[in-house]
Structures are given as structure tokens and as C-alpha cells.
């Protein structure tokens, strides 16, 4: 019997593509023969805009790359600029930065868990995930006055010091979160249907995964013990005690479990950060409106000129963002605007592995594997 191949277009507007991505699937019945990814539906030309803005004006644009975890984007860009210009940052600012980074890692993984389970058909987890996310966003709102697009980490420090009553609320959140993660594990991890959907799906060897450029938690699910926070320590991570979460199976379930472990680890880091937070200097000028751009050094930012021109040069600087290796390649020609900004986004490189990963699987498996890769389209298309 001769059968025809069926061509299915999933997307760009499809409930489970996390935005606007398109899969061109060549199907044999329910089996995927070939998967081609078409992207660019959210290509906004951020890199070109970077050449048209000053160094300070580009910070808000980094918020909108990976819009679920904006703090790491801010920080990766700011770190590159600071490396380029050789700026020292006060210790308190570094601690605040790490605090926000780890908090944002939890938020990112919550959203990822929720949308993964929503794609698998369980609508409840996303509500629980967003419930806790909302608590974290209240903290962000308190800290920097926005819920998703923060523009908080600036070259030379952070925008403002922590407000009154922030640390107690943070502690409340941390303690609450412990129990919530137990709830999630009880709800999802042991579920037979969930395991049946995830175990042995989207398997890839560690060699392949590295070759396909996967990074971050997705790679750690393949048994590669790697974390930029350990390998190239930045900020105050060398002073903090944490372990790298690795799973060896290399399937969707392992990638999911790495996320759960990382949330616990982030809580552990947050506790240490709260304990080790240097006290705010007295006579801090960090009142509203007096921020790094006015050039006045405060407890959380060094002197930073209003017209900032870094020396000519090139830098590639990267951090461990919640989704993987996030790097900024900045070329400066000594003017107030960068000559070229290249964003190495984790989602883009992780996505390269999908066509290989899903060959011979079915559409539901594609959704499961795609969910565990954890892609944000703003980050893919930039």
C-alpha cells in the first residue's frame, strides 16, 4: 500500500509554540519524518537598534529579548560593558544583582514548568506556577518599579538600593517557595501519565547535545557537568556555595528534573545572599531620582559619566542565564554608541537541536521535547 506524506504547518499562531514559531512537519501518519523550523516572526532588529542607541539607552532593549527572565539579560549586557570599560562595582550592588538573577531563575523555571504542563494538557500547574511568579513579581515591582521589563541593572551598579521591608518579604517568599516546590513534585513528578509522556522522549547523547550548541539546564539534563557560574565565575558567585544540578538520562524528564533541582538550588543561593548582604552605607544618596545616570556615586553604584564612551575594543562576555549561555559581543569604536552588538541567545542555539531530537517521534512528543528545551521567541528571533 502506498501512503502519502502529510505536510503539516504548526504555527506561527499555535497554542503550543510559546509564541510565534512555525514547525513545518513532514508526517507519515502520526510520525514526524522531518521537522523544519521556520522562525523570524518576532525578529525585531534589536542588534541594529543597538547600533543606534547609546550604551545606556540600550539597557531597556535587553529586557525585551528574553522577556521572562529580564534581569539576566540586563546583567549580561551590563557585564560586557563593564568588562569593556573596566568599571568596578560596589559589593552591595553585586549582591543585589545576584539576588535578582537567582530570583529571576526561579521565575523562569516556574513559567517553563507551567507552560510545559499546559502543553501536555494539565492546566493546573501553570496556575500554581504563575501564582508563585506573581509573588516574585511583587518583589520585583517593589525593587525596581516594573514587573517584567526592569531596566534595573545599570553599568556601574544598580538603579536604586533595596527599599525598606524588602528583605523580610523576600524571606517570606523563600520559605513559602520550599513547600510549593514539594507540592509541584507531588503533583507532577510521580504522575504516571507525565512520566509516560516524558521518559525516553527527545533523547540525545551528551556529545550531540554539545555539538548542537545546547547550553544551560537543557544541556545539564544530558549529563554534562557544566555551569558558567562555576567555570568562569563572575560577580559574587565564587563566594557562594551551590552545586551544579546534573541528570544523566538525556531525555525530557531529565531536563525537567534539572529545572526542579535548580529552583531548590537557587533558593539555597538566595538564603546565602540575604545573609551575606553588605549593609547599606550611611548617608546613601540612593533616593529616588538620584541614580547612576546623574553621575553621583551611591552605595549601589560607582561614578558613571553621563556621556559614557568606553575605549575602543571588542569583548565577548557571557553569563549563565536561566535558559543557558547568554553572551553579548560588543564592538566599541570609542563613540557614545556601540559599533556592533551581537547577542548570543541561549534559546536560538538550544533550538537547533529540536529537528534532530524529534525525528521519528509524534506531534505530542515534539511538544513535550520542545517544552523542556524552554524557548522564548523574543530570545530566538531578537
Amino acid at each position, binding site marked *: 500500500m502506498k501512503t502519502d506524506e502529510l505536510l503539516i504547518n504548526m504555527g506561527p499562531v499555535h497554542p503550543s509554540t510559546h509564541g510565534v514559531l512555525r514547525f513545518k512537519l513532514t508526517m507519515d501518519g502520526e510520525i514526524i519524518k522531518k521537522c523544519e523550523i521556520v522562525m523570524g516572526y518576532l525578529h525585531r532588529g534589536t542588534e541594529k537598534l543597538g547600533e543606534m542607541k547609546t550604551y545606556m539607552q540600550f539597557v531597556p532593549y535587553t529586557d525585551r529579548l528574553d522577556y521572562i527572565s529580564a534581569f539576566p539579560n540586563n546583567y549580561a549586557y551590563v557585564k560586557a560593558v563593564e568588562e569593556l570599560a573596566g568599571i568596578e562595582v560596589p559589593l552591595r550592588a553585586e549582591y543585589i544583582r545576584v539576588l535578582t538573577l537567582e530570583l529571576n531563575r526561579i521565575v523562569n523555571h516556574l513559567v517553563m514548568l507551567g507552560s510545559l504542563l499546559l502543553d501536555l494538557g494539565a492546566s493546573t500547574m501553570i496556575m500554581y506556577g504563575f501564582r508563585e511568579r506573581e509573588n516574585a513579581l511583587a518583589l520585583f515591582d517593589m525593587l525596581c518599579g516594573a514587573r*517584567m521589563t526592569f531596566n534595573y541593572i545599570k553599568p556601574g551598579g544598580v538603579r536604586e538600593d533595596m527599599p525598606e521591608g524588602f528583605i523580610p518579604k523576600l524571606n517570606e517568599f523563600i520559605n513559602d517557595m520550599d513547600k510549593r516546590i514539594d507540592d509541584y513534585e507531588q503533583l507532577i513528578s510521580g504522575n504516571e501519565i507525565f512520566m509516560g509522556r516524558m521518559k525516553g522522549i527527545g533523547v540525545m547523547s551528551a556529545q550531540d547535545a554539545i555539538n548542537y550548541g545546547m547550553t544551560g539546564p537543557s544541556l545539564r539534563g544530558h549529563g554534562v557537568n557544566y555551569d558558567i557560574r562555576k567555570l568562569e565565575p563572575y560577580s559574587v558567585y565564587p563566594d557562594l556555595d551551590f552545586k551544579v544540578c546534573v541528570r544523566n538520562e538525556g531525555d525530557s524528564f531529565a531536563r525537567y528534573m534539572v529545572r526542579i533541582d535548580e529552583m531548590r538550588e537557587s533558593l539555597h543561593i538566595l538564603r546565602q545572599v540575604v545573609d551575606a548582604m553588605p549593609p547599606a552605607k550611611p548617608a546613601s544618596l540612593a533616593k529616588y531620582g538620584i541614580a547612576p545616570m546623574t553621575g553621583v556615586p551611591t552605595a549601589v553604584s560607582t561614578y558613571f559619566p553621563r556621556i559614557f564612551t568606553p575605549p575602543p575594543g571588542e569583548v565577548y562576555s557571557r553569563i549563565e542565564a536561566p535558559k543557558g549561555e547568554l553572551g553579548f559581543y560588543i564592538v566599541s569604536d570609542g563613540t557614545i554608541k556601540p559599533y556592533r552588538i551581537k547577542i548570543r541567545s541561549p534559546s536560538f542555539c538550544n533550538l537547533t537541536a529540536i529537528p534532530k531530537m524529534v525525528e521519528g517521534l509524534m506531534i505530542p512528543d515534539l511538544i513535550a521535547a520542545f517544552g523542556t528545551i524552554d524557548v522564548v521567541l523574543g530570545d530566538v528571533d531578537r
Partner: protein
Amino acid sequence: MEKGGFRVDPLTIDTTKIKFTKKQPVTALDKLNDTGLISTVLAAREREGLILFSTIDQIFNWARLSSLWPVTSGLACCAIEMMATAMAHHDVARFGMEIFRASPRQADLMFVAGTVTKRMAPRVKKLYEMMPDPKWVISVGSCANTGGPYIESYCVLKGVDLIIPVDVYIPGCPPRPEAWIYGIIQLREKIKNQGYGAKWGLNK
């Protein structure tokens, strides 16, 4: 600037044309109460034509404004806040809007939530055309309103109202879920005041 058929160039808007419409209910709560069953049906008295028909119209209008099913079409950052709006803390289900239909055939309302790139624009337009009448569009966030942060970019459409008619604009980048719900309340207000034929092109 008429190039490319742009109706309004956001950079050079003539400020003299701006009019302020006086709205009777001021706060969000007033507006919500103003779109209740009784006040919606009583609004039939202010309409022209037979009171019976306009009353039936108003009942239909109330049904429409109280069960707006959005189509699942997140484009960018604002889509995450759209999800947050539907989630437990803000719970847009209170307005009967939690049924996010994946198929535009069954939806009444489209949130254009995020940057409309040149490449996405024909798809957004097609999605809108696939929706059955009566249908409404809410443009959310700076990107969809005017192009916002990416207004100087080479591949971003400068406002979604260039391709489809927009009923309510919600500013914010992205707007808070509360701002989102306020926009929904504004749309309810608009639906309340519209005639049965207004969307169908029968009268007016």
C-alpha cells in the same frame, strides 16, 4: 508623511487634533457597574428606534460583553502578561473570559499582544479575518499601539491599527494585568453603547 500609507506618524502627531471625550463614569469600578445587566438594558432608552428592538439589542450586547472569548494569539512580551491576567492572581475568568479559544473561528476578541513584525502582520490580519462577526480587537502594549521601542526598526510594523481596526488601546510596556482588565472594562463600555447593526453594517 504619507509614505507607505501610514495614517498617523506617531513621531509627528498634531497635538491640536487631540480631543478629550468626557466620560461619565470615572473610576474602573464605576465603569464595571455601568455595564451591568440593568444599566445595559436601560441604555436602550437612549437609543433611537423602537424601544423593543433596542432593548433586544441591548440584551444581545450584554451577552456579548459578558462573554468575550479571546483567541490565543500571544506575539511577544505582552503575551506573558496576558497569561498572568488569566492566572490566579488577576483571574480574568471573573468576566467569563477564561475560555481562550485556540481556533479564531470560535473567538470574539483578539488581543494583539506584542510586537507585530512585518513578517507577522499578514498572519495577524488573516487571523482577524477568520474570526466571525461581531469581533473586537484590543491592541496591547507600546509595540502594538505604535511600534513602541522598535519604532525605528526595519522590520516592525508601526502600529497594528495600520492593518486591522482597533477598538481599545492599552498602553504599557507591558501593561500590568490590572491595566489589562481596565482595558477590558473599557471595551465592555464600548460594546454596551454599540448598536446591533453597528458591527454588521446594517444601520448608522
